[in-house]
């Protein structure tokens, strides 16, 4: 090969390497950016009067005078809509039967769309579910519902070779010649006066309980549950892990037993997380009976086992990084071995140990599989500290899965799901970031 080609190969080799790192950075961005941009929308969004009504009724929050004046102005426009509807209903009665049947079917679709947009219409029975008591609380959702009201979605099946395509037909055309035809442009033009959108900063998303399985309200029970589980796991795993690391670094003598223990540690680190969940169910709940069924304590114990190897490893590394000279200096001053460990080695290794601990805390907070069978429930209120031994808890990680995959109206509460993901990712990344900063500061300090 000539030297030119070799150089080209060399350059492209470098490019592949740098490209891989760029792809990894982009992967991080591609995953994190939509989560952050959409997740922020759970707290900051354009809220409608329906949102303020909901807050007032369900959480007793907001200014009642202000709200009633807003409601009055909204109702002026709503009354027009309602009167159009009653007008059309009267017109419907006078139609010939086959035409009447045709329009009735179309009209009921319109009614449903209006209910979704504005909340219960006059004459509707009191709704059972909280979600039906209010119209759209978020402006961008309201615009989607407006589109549903204005256009009917149809599927084009004419070509059997390709997948069916969706297309939209204006509903107004369907009501050509009736009095209802005016309703569509009226709602379209006056929706902002009906719903009164304004910028909303809903911090309650982080501190409120959810209403009607996360249709409204916040995610406090999940956040609290996540903290209970993660901190509970740390309470068990951290002391155990540090003591085990002290044994491995300071006392273990090389030999068969020691290599067995080390193998066990790396085996534990490699166990798939779902198997921890099965073990937690089979051991802590079915055998040890730490609780009747799922509970925070069972989940915390399971998570503790999962993060134990990580804590041991990072603590070992931190202890081994303490210069040997500290040990010698302390011993030569007449200190016992144990005293040296407690007064010199552990304090010097503490930042490193804490770094590992913080990262493990993040891992415990983010894991889902081990708590599915041991601690997590889909809905529920925040539990008290006294209940951790007996009752399960909602947790961010599990509820993200649950709301995204199993919720009956998953696509309608995307903002809640995004908000939860953002909350979880922020908790975990903040913990990791603080660990990185801590480590950087410590290495600077140790260098003097």
């Amino acid at each position: 090969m000539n030297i030119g080609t070799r150089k080209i190969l060399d350059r492209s080799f470098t490019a592949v390497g740098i490209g891989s790192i760029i792809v990894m950075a982009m992967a991080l961005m591609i995953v994190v950016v939509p989560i952050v941009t959409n997740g922020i929308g759970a707290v900051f969004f354009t809220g409608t009067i329906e949102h303020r009504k909901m807050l007032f009724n369900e959480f007793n929050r907001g200014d009642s005078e202000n709200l009633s004046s807003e409601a009055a102005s909204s109702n002026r426009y709503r009354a027009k809509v309602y009167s159009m509807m009653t007008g059309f209903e009267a017109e419907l009665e006078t139609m010939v039967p086959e035409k009447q049947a045709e329009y009735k079917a179309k009209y009921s679709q319109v009614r449903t769309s209006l209910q979704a947009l504005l909340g219960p219409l006059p004459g509707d029975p009191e709704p059972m579910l909280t979600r039906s008591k209010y119209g759209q609380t978020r402006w961008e959702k309201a615009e989607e519902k407006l589109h549903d009201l204005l256009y009917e979605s149809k599927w084009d099946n004419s070509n059997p070779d390709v997948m069916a395509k969706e297309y939209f037909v204006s509903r107004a055309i369907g009501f050509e010649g009736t009095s209802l035809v005016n309703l569509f442009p009226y709602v379209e033009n006056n929706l902002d006066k009906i719903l009164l959108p304004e910028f909303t900063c809903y911090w309650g998303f982080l501190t409120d309980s959810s209403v009607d399985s996360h249709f409204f309200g916040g995610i406090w029970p999940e956040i609290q549950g996540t903290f209970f589980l993660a901190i509970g796991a740390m309470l068990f795993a951290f002391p155990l892990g540090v003591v085990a690391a002290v044994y491995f670094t300071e006392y273990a003598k090389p030999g068969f037993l020691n290599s067995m223990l080390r193998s066990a540690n790396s085996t534990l680190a490699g166990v798939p997380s779902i198997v921890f969940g099965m073990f937690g169910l089979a051991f802590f709940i079915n055998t040890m009976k730490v609780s009747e069924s799922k509970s925070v304590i069972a989940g915390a114990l399971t998570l503790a086992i999962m993060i134990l190897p990580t804590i041991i490893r990072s603590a070992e590394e931190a202890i081994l990084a303490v210069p040997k000279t500290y040990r010698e200096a302390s011993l030569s001053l007449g200190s016992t071995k144990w005293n040296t460990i407690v007064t010199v080695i552990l304090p010097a290794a503490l930042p490193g140990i804490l770094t590992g601990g913080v990262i493990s805390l993040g891992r415990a907070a983010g894991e889902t599989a081990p708590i599915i069978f041991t601690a997590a429930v889909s809905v529920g209120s925040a539990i008290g500290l006294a209940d951790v031994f007996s009752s399960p808890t909602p947790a961010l990680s599990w509820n993200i899965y649950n709301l995204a995959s199993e919720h009956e109206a998953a696509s309608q509460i995307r903002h809640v799901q995004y908000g939860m993901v953002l909350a979880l990712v922020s908790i975990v990344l903040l913990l990791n970031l603080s660990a990185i900063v801590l480590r950087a500061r410590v290495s600077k300090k140790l260098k003097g």
Partner: protein
Amino acid sequence: MTVDAKDISESAPVQKATRDIYLPPARKKITGGDTTHISAKEFSIYYGEFEAVKRVSADILAKYVTAIIGPSGCGKSTFLRAINRMNDLIPSCHTTGALLFDGEDVYGKFTDEVLLRKKVGMVFQKPNPFPKSIFDNIAYGPRLHGVNDKKKLMEIVERSLRKAAIWDEVCDRLDKNALGLSGGQQQRLCVARTLAVEPEVLLLDEPTSALDPKATAKIEDLIQELRGSYTIMIVTHNMQQASRVSDSTMFFYEGVLVEHASTAQLFTNPKDPMTEDYITGRFS
């Protein structure tokens, strides 16, 4: 091979031959220093199978400065570290023969190595202050041994720092991190830290090898200051240093104590040809 410790302890009074080793011609006389403080009898140190120090017999007189010289890997550091049992940190290390300190076997069955190290302080090659404040560094030892009174600690800290000739440099920043000091200051701090435990013996393991000439001179001055108050043993690579600071010198080669004589004699009129080769620089 093993010498019974009891028998040897009877021989604590110094023989004439031993005293001859310490004939510091031009130095001030040391009072009360004519006793054997440390004494090795057929003393060997092994790392596993390897015999690092071979059947060394020597008497070290109290309150004098004894230098240990020899090429790298000759066992001089190993011998020094054996005196306060720092070699215990190496799992494969074991000894035969006897090493007596005040007539008691250092490796005896009933020896408490922690109490031993309290009496035999050590300063290492690289300055190794703890990442704590200067005060806490000095107070570390006294606190270990039960001194908790703040006023008393302060006294000890000041006395130790003064003895180590570093008090004037650090007295206004006792609460600052010791790692902020210069290398030479750190090493004198380490000496002060050792003195705070009130040891009888000071072991210096190449204390100036990581320091610049100026800091080295200060440490050497310090050794002169401490001479007469403590039994000092210093391992050094630097033969000029050995001749400057010590009263007697031991020359080790491949684990064997080749010659032990007064410093003046060893450097001017060595008995062993090997010693002569070494001090004249024919090998190192």
